[in-house]
């Protein structure tokens, strides 16, 4: 018995027991020999080990050597033990080796766990990556949708602008003719009615222009083309428009010293900023009040201040006034004039130039709007000397013969308006279609053509090409008169070969004449030279 005991001890050190199945059933399922528990006191085999039972069903009927695989079961203390077994048939003996797994198994399990955790992390990473890709796709789709909606919005704005400008052209133009009393004198009441119509229609036009501007700014499509120009020049142009408004309200406009100051900005937009601030100041200043504008240049920065003695702005509204559609004083005493967009546009225009705008105001005392504009490093380092005040354009002296102007316009009201504006000074021929115009030009060569763009039978651009192809009209100035007044339209028409572009509505006769007279002078000069040569 010594040898088996030694062998048993040796195996104990390895946590292995070897059982031999005897024909007499010494080791059978569910009944391990008593000494087994001397080795694995806490391991419950037999009936309490379904896994071992299952393994033994295969153990002696299968191959010479069968491995059980690892299993974990409860031990007698309620803990867990992991085991593995081999059934071996050797020289007619049937041996069962049971190995209780220890530290080595835990390491094996830890390694497998790490591998699986890594795989789970990889799967999660894949999921996150797929999620990101999905998000990206969704974002791209949303961007495309936003672009599409923007496109629709732009088309809507263009269409709205065009459709509103056409009737406004008639309303504004005819009311200006009525106000001129060119068709007969008006009585006081009639003059007042006409003034109301003119004011309301200009308000509507301002609203359209402001909405278009704001939508351009917000879409990032407002392009500015900075240039250097004298402040005094731009200021004078704006004041020329502002003074009549101030006069109507008996408000004094004071212009501080601006001589020598240069501005680096988009000229048109700079004037728009000045106009918005000055017209606002007039609007909110009571009769006999004062509006003043000052400018200073310091550290390469232009500062312009517009100060009024108006109603002022409550402190809590001083930020909100730069928001869209905000109007000061929504209460009963509030003055609700204008579109509520002017200051929002002004702020964005100033910021687009790299400047900023602030307001200082005391209710009842007045307001002061101050904006700054950098004098860019790209502009001349030293302010150029101010140009002398530009001389007024030479007065157009009527030529020996009445010049002929062709109006090609399908809208009856616009056609009648232009005819009424031009007839006192020119021979006018009107055409409703492009074809009618071409036929008419053949009979009577016009000195200048006013051409609408949206004609029923052809596009104004196509008609222009035909006019330029015809020797008799090849050199005639052609002025585009269009309700297409979106960003870039002007450039598009001038590039196409029009000599001038006027957007509808045309404010009054003077505006129209200012646009065409220089062109007619050139025609007149050329024909004079022609006459002299002959």
């Amino acid at each position, binding site marked *: 018995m010594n040898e088996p005991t030694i062998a048993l001890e040796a195996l104990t050190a390895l946590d292995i027991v070897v059982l031999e199945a005897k024909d007499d059933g010494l080791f059978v399922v569910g009944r391990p020999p008593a000494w087994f528990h001397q080795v694995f006191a806490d391991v419950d085999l037999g009936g309490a080990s379904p896994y071992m039972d*299952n393994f033994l069903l295969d153990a002696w009927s299968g191959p010479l050597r069968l491995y059980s695989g*690892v299993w*974990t*079961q409860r031990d007698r203390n309620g803990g867990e033990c*992991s085991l593995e077994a081999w059934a071996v048939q050797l020289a007619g003996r049937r041996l069962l080796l049971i190995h209780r797994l220890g530290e080595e198994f835990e390491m094996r399990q830890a390694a*497998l766990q790490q591998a*699986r*955790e890594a795989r*789970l992390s990889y799967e999660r990473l894949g999921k996150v990556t797929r999620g990101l890709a999905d998000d990206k796709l969704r974002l791209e789709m949303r961007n495309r949708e936003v672009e599409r909606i923007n496109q629709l919005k732009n088309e809507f704005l263009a269409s709205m602008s065009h459709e509103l400008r056409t009737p406004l052209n008639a309303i504004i133009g005819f009311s200006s003719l009525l106000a001129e009393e060119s068709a007969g004198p008006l009585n006081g009441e009639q003059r007042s009615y006409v003034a109301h119509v003119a004011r309301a229609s200009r308000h509507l036009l301002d609203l359209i222009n402001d909405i278009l501007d704001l939508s351009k700014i917000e879409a990032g499509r407002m392009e500015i083309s900075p240039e250097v120009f004298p402040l005094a020049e731009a200021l004078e142009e704006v004041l020329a428009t502002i003074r009549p408004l101030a006069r109507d309200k008996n408000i004094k406009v004071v212009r501080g010293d601006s001589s020598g100051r240069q501005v680096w900005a988009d000229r048109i937009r700079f004037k728009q900023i000045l106009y918005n601030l000055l017209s606002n100041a007039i609007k909110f200043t009571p009769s006999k009040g004062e509006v003043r504008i000052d400018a200073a240049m310091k550290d390469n920065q232009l500062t312009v201040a517009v100060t009024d003695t108006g109603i002022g702005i409550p402190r809590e509204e001083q930020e909100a006034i730069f928001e869209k559609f905000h109007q000061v004083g929504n209460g009963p005493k509030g003055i609700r004039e204008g579109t509520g967009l002017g200051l929002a546009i002004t702020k964005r225009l100033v910021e687009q130039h790299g400047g900023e705008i602030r307001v200082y105001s005391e209710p009842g005392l007045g307001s002061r709007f101050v904006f700054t504009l950098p004098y860019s490093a790209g502009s001349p380092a030293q302010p150029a000397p101010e140009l002398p005040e530009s001389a007024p354009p030479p007065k157009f002296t009527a030529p020996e013969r009445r010049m002929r102007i062709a109006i090609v316009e399908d809208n009856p009201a616009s056609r009648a308006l232009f005819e009424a504006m031009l007839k006192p000074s020119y021979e006018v021929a009107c055409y409703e279609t492009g074809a009618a115009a071409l036929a008419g030009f053949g009979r009577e060569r016009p000195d200048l053509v006013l051409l609408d763009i949206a004609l029923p039978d052809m596009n104004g651009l196509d008609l222009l090409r035909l006019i330029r192809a015809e020797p008799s009209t090849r050199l005639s100035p052609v002025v585009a008169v269009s309700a297409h007044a979106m960003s870039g339209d002007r450039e598009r028409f001038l590039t196409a070969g029009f000599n001038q572009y006027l957007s509808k509505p045309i404010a009054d006769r003077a505006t129209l004449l200012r646009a065409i007279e220089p062109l007619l002078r050139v025609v007149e000069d050329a024909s004079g030279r022609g006459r002299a040569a002959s």
Partner: protein
Amino acid sequence: MSPIQKKVCMAGSFGVGKTSLVRRYVESMFDERYHTTVGVKIDKKQVTVDGKAMTMVLWDLAGEDGVAVLRPSHLRGASGVILVADGCRAGTLDNAISLEQRITAEIGSLPFILALNKLDLAAEWEIHAAAVEPLVRSGWTCTRTSAKSGAGVDEMFLTLARKMLGQDQ
């Protein structure tokens, strides 16, 4: 009279929560940490189903991956199967479907339940109703469980126990 003993095999991909479902059922506990199962883990649960005492012997089979695969001998004597899938991993449902086919081929048709586990992470689920609907239509019993919260766990084992008892009648 000794209670009826029924062998139940838990099968499914690794990491779907088989061990956690057993632990929740047997010990009413849950461990956030992941513990991979090597080989087979055996547990028991005494239950009374409709007045009948039953010992459920739960064979928690190591999750399948490239290394571990289902051993047919482990299925011998099983009375029911719980197929477990992780609701957050669509691939584990495919594997559960494949396992069902292999188990049926190996030991014939058995009462089984498909457990879509990790209901507590429902917001991250990749397995949606549309994927499960055809299985239900073809007669599968599908249930949503959370080993973490315990939602649906007892009910699932009880349903399987009834199915297994029904099989005996």
